[in-house]
């Protein structure tokens, strides 16, 4: 049987969800027979090609995040999101309590360790959105694995369900927001 092709991306996040995926430990060996990871921060390939399953960690925070999310969505049959940031906005969405200007000023100018700071303004750089959004406000999402980060157990459950041909919804006992 052909391996299921998977591409992953991390957007506005801490990469903790990908670490949790690696926490599958020996279960990864079993998975390796069934899946092939193509474009991913783990393989360090950057360009998406068509895959069966797309996985996104992190929220949509800037123009780059949106572009990557749309690109992956266009290249995958099923899109799964990992972690509170991708599912709900999560910890990165705390900046929504402030305006974009306040956030940039605080980060690039007012931080205690900064001397003569400057807010970067190159056209080559992604533009920060006024508000951080969960992934489903930008592209259609098929399944969600919340958690900060989701446990390896939750990720394993979701991937195993998908390999069995079912769209996973985490059972209450496994679901965590922290």
């Amino acid at each position, binding site marked *: 049987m052909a391996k299921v092709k998977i591409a992953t991306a991390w957007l506005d996040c801490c990469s903790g969800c990908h670490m949790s995926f690696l926490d599958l430990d020996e279960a990864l060996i079993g998975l390796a027979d069934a899946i092939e990871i193509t474009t991913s921060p783990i393989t360090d390939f950057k360009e998406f090609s068509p895959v069966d399953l797309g996985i996104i960690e992190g929220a949509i925070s800037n123009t780059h995040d949106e572009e990557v999310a749309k690109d992956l969505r266009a290249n995958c049959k099923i899109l799964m999101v990992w972690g*509170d940031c991708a*599912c*709900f*906005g*999560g*910890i990165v*969405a*705390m900046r*929504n*309590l402030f305006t974009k200007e306040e956030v940039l000023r605080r980060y690039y100018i007012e931080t205690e360790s900064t001397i003569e700071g400057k807010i970067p303004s190159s056209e080559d750089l992604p533009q920060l959105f006024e*508000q951080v959004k*969960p992934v*489903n*406000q930008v592209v259609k*999402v098929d*399944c*969600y*694995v*919340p958690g*900060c980060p989701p446990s390896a157990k939750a990720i394993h459950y979701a991937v195993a369900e998908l390999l069995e041909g079912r769209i996973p*919804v*985490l*059972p*209450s006992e496994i*679901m*965590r*927001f*922290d």
Partner: protein
Amino acid sequence: MKEITLTINDKQVKGKEGDTILEICQANGIDVPTLCHLDGLSDVGACRMCVVEIEGERKPVPSCTYPARDGLVVKTNTEQLEKYRRQILELLFTERNHFCMFCEQSGDCELQKLAYRYQMDNVRYPYTFPSLPVDSLSDYLVIEHNRCVLCGRCIRVCSEIAATYTLDFGGRGWGTTVVADLEQPVSESTCTSCGACVQACPTGAIFSKLSLYRGIPSDCQQITTVCPVCGVGCELNVLVKDNNIVSIEAPELTGLKGPLCKQGRFELLRETRPRITSPLVRGKKGELEEGTWDKAAEVIAESVRGLKDSFAGIVSPRMPNETLSLFHKFIREVVGSDLIDTMDGENYRVTSEGIRQFQDNGKGLDIECLIEEIIEADCILVAGADPEKTNPIIGNLVRRAVSQRGAKLIVIHPSRNVFPLWTDLWLKPREGSEGDLLNGLAKNLIDTGLAVPQKAGTKLIESLSQCDTGEVGRATGIDEESLKLAAKMYGQAERGVIIYGEGLMQSNNPSLITSLLNLADLAGNQAGDRLRVISLKTSANSRGGWELGLAARGITRNGLKGLYLLLSDDQADEELLDWLRGIDFLVVQASYQSPATSIADVVLPSPIWAEREGKYVNMDGSALQLKQVLQPPEGILQDQEILIQLSKKLGHELSPS
């Protein structure tokens, strides 16, 4: 109440007329999710989690506020209802800023549990990200509006149970928030910091600073013990993890002693005094030096031997009965002295003598009524007492009676209105004229025909003959009208309760207590064979100590050469300290460093309240079990063990029984 039958989820169930649908579901084991409901509080239907379908109703209704009727057909678990509930949860999450990953309540949050139950793995609505303040100025609790679901449980517990009426909703619609008074920081409001709202809050919106990130209940062992502070004797649920107290909660938040108070819920966890962990002996240079138990016992034995009647023992009324008895035995049998007292023994001697002069039938403190009479009272007279300070739950019961049941409140205090927001009449007798006032009130009852005729014996009438209103006015400085009004309010009450405290007890004048009892008796304020009178006991085992006879005689200070103060985690007041300074040889058994230990010749470490067990007798005379919740630090012996070891040094076998 008429029995009714209704059909819930195709099953016939029974309930009583007046029950809500939710009550009937809960009584019949039918699970209905709730969030704004809390057993014992009124229901308001704020959250809509408990919606049910009722045949004939156009739309789902909240079961917590819907009165059940005979023959209703109810569904609690249809697919449509489950969809609504998940939708409500999603809306709740978008309304405020909920970030479980660093919330101290995560793992013990009703909102989070519901979201798991409804498998809420995404939210279909845009978040609102409101900008909300955090009130963290209080020493005890934080109000984190970002996590508030506006269920109103804090507000209802604050009014219905804590009876402080501090919290309420402020603003309208989207702008609604929980506010203290007129939007003050809670630390500057009328809040008494009882912490009932902390326990009632289903999320992390109101939390205790003293329990922050210490652990969640599922990781803790829960031990029910008794509060070691005042004589009310509230039960405490102590949550313990790794030999640390995580939090203290009320076993029954909406019960009689439900709210607990600042002392019991918070202050016990705010201890900052340095702990004493090994015996200290005053050395040759006059400094306290660390020594072994053996050395300390040796020094004590040497100094105590032969002192007999010039050696005294004083013990904290926070000690359980077992320790009190053994200490008594130690002083009597091992030292050979009769000089023993509790730190609040003086209160007892005044009270008991006052009772004896009123009625010498040996009933003693059992002449007083139980504290539950306060909440049933229609008039409360608080004389020379400040319950809000000394026994906060008594203050709470007074406020509940006054604010919820229309009881009248009269305060007798020379300088302070101790219930400024609730008092109907404040009588300010000149210092020392309380007796004239009480007798004046009694005389007034007789003169106005409000006294029970058979109680007004000729002897009493004779003794009150000189208490005419003019005389009383001159002595007390209280005008005739106020006196008459007070007499009328108290005399006309069906269930008038008198609460008195140290203001009267420390007058060294038992006749004040007698006058007060006469007044209650004249007005016919009896509950069974007790009088509706309560004396405030300020320590957890005041009554235990008194009943065991430790406070019977008191101590004469003349010729005293040595003294043993079993202080433990209690505090010695200035008066006692002054006295202790004149003692040649002072032993202090204490948990913490304090002025008392600094003047001692030998200091023995003592366990704190959480490290010991034993029996307490509360104000009502009920025996309560203090349970050990923590292991004491290494090297600290139980108080009784210390006494047994000391006795051995002095050649005595002291047995606890």
